[in-house]
């Protein structure tokens, strides 16, 4: 599906928010936690599409929050407004929307991106949502105002420049708060640490994986994750969101 980029909003030096609309017709329905495969236009040094999680979407518009991680994502962050993008979507399985009670959404770095849409959706479903967002420093805390508008938001920074000094796993909200379910997206070591806390406290927990992907549609078997019940499964097809009880973490 072809998209037209309406706006590229830099978020500090390392990130950009791409707001886009389908060139023709309306957006397909997307669930929080699903992702897209973006073709990098006019790129000499990249070959494959880039999997990017959906930050927010409705029937007209989609937002992708992109971190500069290499040539492909740099090209996306530097796109001129009005650019066209070929995007395959929606891909994968998103977060469980049947969760109820006190739900804590834990994000790290640009991994907070899909939690915005998830939080907004859960709020409309009447769920009590709290956000716990971690970053190295204040400038890596993205879309903070939008999170605050959606629900109670706590932050941690490793340098202590905002909120609690340290990691999300040091925050009392995660270690001692009253929580019925955790949804988590961020760097792998963070997700593993959050999963360990969830296990020890007996709280159900989902994580969104970002194993290296080629196709994004379950054809190449490159992005597999080992599961308790089915061995190696494609993260792009059976995930990217997994309940930790399926994982061998």
């Amino acid at each position, binding site marked *: 599906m072809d998209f037209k980029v309406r706006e590229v909003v830099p978020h500090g030096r390392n990130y950009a928010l791409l707001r886009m609309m389908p060139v023709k017709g309306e957006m397909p329905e997307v669930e929080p936690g699903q992702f897209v495969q973006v*073709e990098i236009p006019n790129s000499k*040094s*990249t*070959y*494959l*599409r880039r999997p990017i999680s959906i930050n927010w979407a409705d029937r007209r518009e989609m937002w992708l929050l992109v971190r500069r991680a290499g040539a492909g994502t740099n090209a996306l962050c530097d796109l001129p407004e009005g650019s066209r993008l*070929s995007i*395959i979507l929606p891909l994968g399985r998103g977060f469980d929307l049947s969760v109820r009670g006190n739900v804590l959404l834990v994000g790290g770095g640009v991994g907070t991106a899909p939690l915005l849409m998830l939080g907004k959706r859960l709020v409309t479903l009447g769920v009590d949502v709290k956000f716990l967002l971690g970053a190295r420093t204040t400038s890596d805390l993205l879309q903070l105002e939008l999170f605050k508008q959606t629900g109670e938001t706590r932050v941690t920074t490793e340098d202590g420049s905002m909120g609690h000094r340290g990691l999300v796993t040091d925050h009392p909200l995660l270690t001692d708060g009253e929580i019925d379910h955790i949804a988590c997206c961020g760097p792998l070591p963070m997700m593993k640490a959050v999963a360990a806390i969830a296990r020890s406290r007996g709280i159900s927990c989902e994580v969104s994986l970002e*194993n*290296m*992907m*080629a*196709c*994004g*549609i*379950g*054809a*190449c*078997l*490159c*992005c*597999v*994750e*080992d599961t308790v019940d089915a*061995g*190696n499964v494609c993260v792009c*097809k059976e995930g990217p969101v997994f309940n930790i009880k399926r994982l061998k973490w």
Partner: protein
Amino acid sequence: MVDLSVDLGNGLRMKNPVMLASGTCGYGEELADFIDLSSLGGISVKGTTLHARQGNASPRMVETPSGMLNAVGLQNKGVDYFVENIYPRIASLDTSLVVNVSGSSVDDYVAVCDRLRPLDRIAAVEINISCPNVKQGGMSFGTDPSMAAAVVVAARQIWSRHLMVKLTPNVTDITLIARAVEEAGADSVSLTNTFLGMAIDVERQRPYLSTITGGLSGAAIRPIAVRMVWQVSQAVRIPVVGLGGITCGRDAVEFLLAGASAVQIGTANFIDPTTSVKAIAYIEDYMERHNMADMSAITGAMKTP
């Protein structure tokens, strides 16, 4: 009107020369949301082994200049699962079905072919003696002419339908292997499988792949694959199926002109799942523009000085 149909012999007749390459299209179903599978000449389904294989550890993939390295390692649920669960789902597809067969011993290949025999919609097996990502068997069969021939002779005893052999490019002279499998009874050869390669994350000073080395595919390998298809098509009488870095219809035509009777599209499916159907339309248009009535007019039509 251009006639795109192609007869590779011994029962493998395809409506057009474009197939999906094994390992890049799952069982076809994975691409069904994007293309009409019945518009394809054929599908070579995921490499199938006697017993289920979990494949290699992650990471299994890294992007490289104009290509990618993979180290999947023939992850599949084994031939019995294919026969019982997958075949019934794909048997009604109106396209030529080819099963890519792999093994770690000659007996393995024979046993898999034997299990496939009752499945009458399987038009051909593609004997994979070229996977670079498994410890035993795989490519080791494809780098030695006598071992390659031994696999084909044994499979030939039990498989009477079309028998295609997928060759590895990781040899000094690919025509020697091609001739050996022809003599052993192969009906066609497909080439090339991936090129053995590796890439290192220099900051971490570690290989990107869990297996250190992996198979290189994508546009980066195309000129070498075209050269090998050209060489092999002159060295054997059986049809050659060309693959390796085809990204569009133009690239497919390049292989046909070099001597291929049909082509397979692989890694390009990851970038644009509709590459194969676009290639079919391109080939038809190309042949019309060049007054080529049927496939015999384009295969090997490269002009030399």
